[in-house]
Each structure stands twice: as C-alpha cells, then as structure tokens.
C-alpha cells in the first residue's frame, strides 16, 4: 500500500533549542542558589529561614541533584536510544557499594589510604572521592556491558523484563552479601556506615558542609549534561536516534545495533554509578534495603515527565519529582493539616500521586513537561484526526537476527 501525496508542511521547522541559553541559565541559577544559601539566608529573619528549612532544605536540594545525575543517565538509555530499562537501581546500588568499599573502614582487614582526607590510623580502604567516582563509573560501565551484551538482542518488552530481573538480583546480592562463603561483601542489611566525607583542596567536608557538597553535585550534574549534549550531537547520538526510530533501517545504513546499544547502556550505567557514589556520601552510608524497584520507576517517571531525550526537561522532571518526594509533599501536608486542623498523613499519598501523575501524563501529555520537539511528534503519531494507523510492510524477522 502506498502513500500518494504528502502535503508539504507549511510550518517552518522550529528554531533548534538553544542549548547555550539553557546552559547559561543552568549555570546562573546554580550560582544564585549557592549565593542565596551561603550568604543571604543566614541574614534573613528567623521566620523566613525556618520556612526555607521546611520547604527547601539544602539537603533536599543535594539529594535532588543526585537524582538528576542518575536520571540523565537513564535518559541516554531510554530517551536517546529508546531502550526501556526497568532495573536502573542496580547501577545506583553498585555505585553506592563502590563508595562503601573504597571510602570507609568496612574492609578493616586492610589498611590502605590514597588521596583520602580521612585519618590515616583508621583501618579500611580509603581512597579519594574523586578516584572512587572514576572506579564506580568504570565498574558500572563494566556491569552495563556484561548485562547488556547477552540481552540487547531481545525485543523491547523482553529487554525491560531482563533489566527488571537484574534490578532485583543486584540489590538482593547486597542484602544477602554478609556472608558469601565467609566473605563479607556488603555487611548485609546493616549496611556500610559511615562513609568517608569528601575531601576537596585538602579540606574534609563534614556532614554539615552542605553547600560544598551542593557545588560538587552541581558540577557532576553539569558534567552529565555536557556528556549527554556532546554525545547527542555526534556520531553515536545520531546512531542512537536512528535506532530509536527504526532499528531495521538503521542497521541497513551500517549502524551496528549491538555496539551502539551497548554504548548507550554503558554510558547510562556510568551515570548510575556516579549517582550511587554521590548518594553514599550524601546519606553518609549505604543501606541495602533502600535499593528497591521503586527507585527504577521513579527515575523512569522523571525521564518521562520531564520529556524523554531532552536533558533540560529531564533535569526539571528530576528536580520536581525528587523535591515532591522528599520535602514537598510532607511540607505541604503539614501546612494543610495545621491550617485546617486535619490529620492526614500526606506522604502515604505518594503512591496515589505518582500513579495518577504517570497515568494522566500518558493520557494527556505524553511528551512530557519540556519535550524534545521530535518526541512530541513521535508520541502523537497516530492520534491525528483520521486515527488511521500508518501501514507498514510486514517483514518477518527470523529468530536469530
């Protein structure tokens, strides 16, 4: 069946998103927030300060940034390459435990210090935070490839299931890892705590140096944005987009499917690892039971709500959801309860709010808050007035393709 004519689209293509404007905006906002918390907030009236502490505590901001880092990685996998990953929490967990192993007194049978600002007398492996970031990223990239290599041949649904299984296995290994043939891998449910603080310019950051951590996390998020944008505009990014649109045509144009998908997986995993390390220093420990399926889903929600494929959209989505989840909802609940003298447990509505948000977005604004222009077209492909599906050739692919 063929297509006869095609009305020439009268609309001029929209001017490409100005990445520069966005970058400058991001940077300025980050600096402004820093100035506000460090220099202005202490001089404001107490009432205002406590309001800020309730609604926008700096620790929540830091945590939100950790989510941003991970969501940006998932965006590469889901948003760029179109591979559904439901087990992203695994990389987060692996990153976290990397920090636990190399930045604490956990392996107290050894005593090895390198670049860390912690006291030399404390046994255990103590490496510099920056080095651990690299190690965590590498380990995650390795696992990304290991899990990806045999499974990326699968069709999208199956891939989702396998990643989901992976996301269940890894945390369980850590939960049960207290005694693997006598070796304590993870300290089980007790977790690893405390984790060394970040050292920077010879200074050890204490648990209350939130503003320094903020800067570090902002820099990491900026790094992920940079990587995303650079890759997106290059050879690999084009191949990812092509695969997302039409895998078969892409392979016919010389794009190696496996290698390209693996690259997406590996880069995504790296960001998961970075987020894991950052999170470990943020909460000052690693606790196996936190790594649940819901983390994978929340990350996916961030990517989807923000606008798959658009780093800025994903960032907005991640900040918003992380904030609602950690402080927005409880603070809002307290406000309501004290105003109306009610006693509603608002955080227990998280499920409802997330569920409703996901469904309503899918029904009414599938492309997300800040969509990539192409995604908007994609998501509404078949709901034009005619509602007729585009016919396609049926090419039966053989099993081993």
């Amino acid at each position, binding site marked *: *069946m*063929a*297509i*006869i*004519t*095609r009305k*020439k*689209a009268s*609309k001029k*293509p929209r001017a490409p998103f100005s990445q520069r404007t966005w970058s400058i905006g991001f940077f300025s906002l980050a600096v402004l927030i820093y100035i506000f918390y460090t220099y202005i907030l202490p001089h404001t009236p107490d009432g205002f300060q406590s309001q800020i502490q309730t609604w926008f505590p700096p620790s929540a901001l830091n945590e939100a940034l950790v989510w941003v880092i991970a969501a940006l990685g998932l965006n590469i996998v889901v948003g760029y390459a179109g591979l559904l990953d439901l087990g992203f929490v695994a990389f987060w967990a692996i990153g976290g435990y990397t920090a636990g192993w190399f930045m604490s007194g956990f392996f107290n049978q050894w005593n090895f210090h390198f670049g860390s600002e912690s006291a030399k007398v404390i046994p255990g492996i103590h490496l510099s935070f920056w080095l651990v970031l690299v190690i965590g990223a590498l380990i995650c990239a390795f696992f990304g490839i290991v899990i990806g290599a045999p499974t990326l041949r699968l069709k999208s649904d199956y891939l989702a299931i396998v990643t989901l299984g992976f996301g269940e296995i890894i945390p369980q290994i850590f939960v049960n890892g207290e005694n693997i043939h006598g070796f304590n891998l993870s300290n089980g449910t007790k977790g690893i705590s405390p984790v060394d603080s970040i050292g920077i310019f010879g200074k050890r950051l204490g648990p209350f140096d939130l503003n320094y951590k903020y800067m570090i996390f902002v820099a990491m998020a900026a790094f992920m944005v*940079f*990587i995303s944008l*650079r*890759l997106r505009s*290059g*050879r*690999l*990014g*084009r*191949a990812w*987009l*092509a695969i997302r*649109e*039409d895998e*078969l*045509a*892409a*392979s*016919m*144009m*010389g*794009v*190696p*499917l496996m290698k390209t998908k693996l*690259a997406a997986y590996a*880069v995504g995993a790296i960001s998961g690892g970075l987020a894991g390390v950052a999170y470990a220093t943020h909460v000052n420990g690693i606790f196996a039971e936190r790594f649940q399926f819901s983390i994978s889903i929340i990350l996916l929600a961030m990517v989807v709500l923000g606008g798959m494929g658009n780093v800025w959209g994903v960032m907005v989505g991640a900040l918003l959801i992380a904030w609602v989840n950690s402080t927005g909802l409880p603070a809002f609940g307290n406000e309501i309860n004290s105003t109306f003298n009610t006693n509603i447990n608002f955080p227990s509505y998280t499920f409802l709010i997330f569920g409703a948000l996901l469904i309503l977005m899918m029904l009414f604004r599938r492309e997300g808050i800040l969509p990539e222009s*192409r*995604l908007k*077209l*994609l998501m509404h492909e078949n709901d034009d007035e005619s509602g007729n599906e585009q*016919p*396609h*050739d049926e*090419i*039966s*692919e*053989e099993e*081993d*393709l």
Partner: protein
Amino acid sequence: MALDSAPVLEAKNISVEFGGLKAVDDVSFAIPDRSVVSLIGPNGAGKTTFFNVLTGLYKPTSGFVTYDNEDITGLVPHKIAERGVARTFQNIRLFGLMTAEENVMVAMHSHLKAGIIGTIVGTPKQRSEEREARAEAQALLNFVGIGKTAKEFARNLSYGDQRRLEVARALALRPKVLLLDEPTAGMNPQESAVFVDFVYKVRDEKNIAILLIEHDMSVVMKVSERITVLDRGTKIAEGSPAEIKSNPRVIEAYLGKSAEVH
C-alpha cells in the same frame, strides 16, 4: 553498457523458506559492475524477499551471496551495508524525526571514526571529521536535488523529496551497489519519467551498479539494461527489455492468460 563487466554482487542458487513455504526457490542472479538491472514480477513473486537476502535481513535456506568476490552470506545487515551494499525501502523508511542532514549522516556511521571519548572531549580530529561529514551530507543532498531541506525533519518533506532523501542516505554509505525497492511507487507518470534520468545520473556520476525492483513497466523498460523476472519464487525469464517484452511466459505472469500455458 556495463553488462559484460564482472559482477559486483552475485547471488547463487538462493532459496528461502518460511515455515515450509518456499518464498524464493533456487534463484541465481548477478549484478555487473556499473550496470542497471531490474527485478520484476507480480506481487508475491518473492522480489522483496530476495532483496532482503541480498541485504542480510533474511538468511537464505540455501545458496550464497558474494560481494566483490567475498562471501557475505548470512552476515548481519550492518556489515553488508558498510561493505557497500546500500538500499532504499518500498515504503519509505526514513528516520522521520531526524533532519534530512542527520538522516544522511547516520549512514556515514561506518566511515566515521570518532569514539565516545573523542566525541565528549571534542578533539580537533572529531570536530573536523564532523565538519567534513556535514559537508559531504550537504553535497549528497544537493546531488539528489534537495539541498535546501537539510535542516528539516524528514517526515515533513514532500513525498518525492523523501524518495530522494532515501537515495541520498543510501549513497552516504559510499556503495558499489544501490538496491532500489519500488522507487516510483506512488509517483505520477511525469515524476517517474524524471526519475529515470535520475537513475542514470546516479549510476554515471557515482560509478555504481543499480538494482531496481519496480512495478511501473514504463520505467523498467526504459531504464534497465537487463531484466530478470521472478514468478512465485522462481526465475522465469532473463534478458534485455525487448526480449522480456515479447516473452510469452512474462506476458502470462502479468496478464494472467494462464489457461493456455497450463
């Protein structure tokens, strides 16, 4: 005419079965270098299946395919593509949400060398490579006559421009063989006539062989140096346009005067 030159792509005794049904049965076929040859046949004759074997989408049940004297049977599609077998699709399969330029650049994937790190850092080498690729893409778009549409999404192009973009994209592989799957489907007679000239232009200026699957007989007869006719998976005739036109088996296959033959 280039029919006497050595074959650049050759298929020998290809059979393809789907669940016991033979879609292609023992078909041999050669594309001489720099020739324009056509594959015709009624719907369901196995043309597209055969095409899919040449490009690696299907693996033949038996037989083999060689390209430049190298066995490429059963290689995955991207390996065949990067060696220099390019194709277009019967129902246009562009990357609709990428610009025309990006579409062409995707097909340059195998020629570009930049790795992940190089891309992130933006090494001078990577930058100049990108620049050159972009220039080459623009040149290809100009070549097929849609140079002005470089920054438009492929899906917003007119139908004829989409067909041209598909050719530009295929040419970006720097192929020695270009396989065109019903390129004039949905074109009116004037557009088809323009297309005939375009095929020659591609062949002559890019120095490549062209294999055409086509329904429009006027196009096939005008453009082909040799025609192969498939019917129900087997080759029933092969020869020059004049020979094919007067071949009774071909007339039968097309017009269905089957009673006399059987």
